[in-house]
């Protein structure tokens, strides 16, 4: 049994039904789990001396609007000792895009979570300094969301004027 399987097995015993699926694609294992158990899972992977996932290699999010739950927050953990990556994924619905911050376990998550907050508008509970990081502090909207236009202005006709007007990113005071 390789180390990734061992980690998945440990997560299964610890969290049970909170694990929605285990996906293997092109040799990469990604564990999809409920957002309430994310912090517990990461703590287990990090603190357990046998599992020893001690490095947060990447943290980002994706959006599959208009499907729901639209957001996924994706984590790539790495174990120096065993030299393996393990992916974690938690799905969040659009109307309550919130998840626990990983800062208590990985201080390095700070800026990565700020970036996701800035570009996707996902809130990280317990984050020490959740401000915009790349965009100006008075920016309106979250550009990496799929319902944000690509920068061009959408043409408004009579029939869809109000609909576009409602989500049009005006510069507001």
């Amino acid at each position, binding site marked *: 049994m390789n180390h990734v399987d061992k980690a998945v097995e440990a997560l299964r015993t610890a969290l049970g039904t909170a694990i929605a699926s285990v996906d293997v694609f092109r040799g990469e294992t990604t564990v999809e789990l409920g957002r309430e158990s994310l912090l517990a899972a990461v703590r287990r992977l990090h603190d357990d001396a046998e599992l020893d996932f001690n490095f947060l290699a990447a943290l*980002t999010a994706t959006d599959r609007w208009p499907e729901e739950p639209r957001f996924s927050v994706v984590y790539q953990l790495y174990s120096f000792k065993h030299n393996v*990556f393990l992916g974690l994924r938690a799905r969040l619905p659009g109307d309550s895009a919130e998840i626990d911050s990983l800062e208590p376990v990985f201080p390095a998550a700070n800026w990565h979570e700020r970036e996701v907050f800035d570009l996707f508008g996902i809130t990280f509970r317990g984050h020490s300094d959740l401000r915009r990081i790349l965009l100006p502090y008075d920016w309106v909207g979250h550009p990496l969301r799929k319902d944000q236009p690509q920068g061009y202005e959408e043409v408004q006709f009579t029939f869809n004027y109000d609909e576009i007007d409602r989500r049009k990113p005006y510069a507001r005071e």
Partner: protein
Amino acid sequence: MGLTQMDVTVDELKHLVSDRVLQGETMLLNMGPQHPSTHGVLRLLLELDGEKVVNCIPDIGFLHTGIEKNMEAKNYTQAIVMTDRMDYLNTMGNVLVYVLAIEKLVDLDVPVRAQVIRVILTELQRIASHLVWLGTHALDLAAMSVFLYCFRERERILDVLEMCSGQRMMTSYFRPGGLWRDVPPEFEPAVRSILELMPGRIAQYEALLTDNPLWIDRTRKIGVISGPEALRAGLTGPSLRGSGVAWDLRKAQPYCGYEHYEFDIPVGSNGDVYDRYRCRMEEMRQSLRIVDQALRKLPSGPVQSNNRKFVPPPRSELGESMEALIHHFKLWTEGFSAPAGSVFVAVESPRGELGCFLEGDGGPKPHRVHFRTPSFANLQALPQLSRGHLVADLVGIIGSLDIVLGDVDR
């Protein structure tokens, strides 16, 4: 930046500075965003007690160009040109990680010759990047001449990149399944001459700096971070190896056949600015070793995969084969489609772990591309590294992290 914005910022940042600011005991000072030693547009809000840094709050995003969003609007091949513009000192490495991610996502093979050329060019690019780092780092710490020497040699490397790709910096030379085209005949002699030239030149830079008492005074015991702390802070690359952690993705998770090359991972022991400097200097020599081995075993053969679903057919086939014409038309209009699924690929850039998270949705455009850039992650450690040091040393610490603001902000 007017006063009003400053007022708002102080209010917003109250939880990041000490109470002494509000008493007027310490001073808030803006460094940047157009300060020459920040190597781009980085603003640091410093809380100073006299000349001592009490707190340092980086403010980034001045170079944010929305590359990740723009890539979602292009097909997989078109989006390649955007990766060059992130870390503009490591264009080959950026394209490499993106192309590797595509190849993993669509399961595409790469011929051996293309892989070896990829290794040669990324290693040359690593040397070029380290030369810019060394020149500007020394310039920040008031050693003017090193800068001129470094840029002289860097030009030789950029000449090689130009003869391959037609561009000195924005190369876009790697493509899914191989390279844009084969290297020209003058490539090998040019690389060979760089291999002959560089060891002597690196020794010259070292003669100027390594035992120079002024240099040692400015760099030793400055910006110290221990190995475990550096890991917690998310440092990678030479900034991590300077603290004694021998982690290099070329060894740990080899790609492009790095497992077939013999090279060492230089590590420091003290984790200060000086050790990070020594690591990068030694890395240049190791890169030369890799280039030398690669050049010796450079096989002949194709430089592009034969999988016509992803790689356009050569021009000569278009007049004879209907399938070639169809593939040509499909690939240059719609592009190829990638399956729904996500992959994560990480390579060792000159600055550290450069990761690419790529998610496809079955169509010809990437659904989501994210770059985990080493400059972004390394810059996060700056407040921790600079606390308690003088403002003058802060300049050296920024230099020792080797950040590129295009890479930070994307």
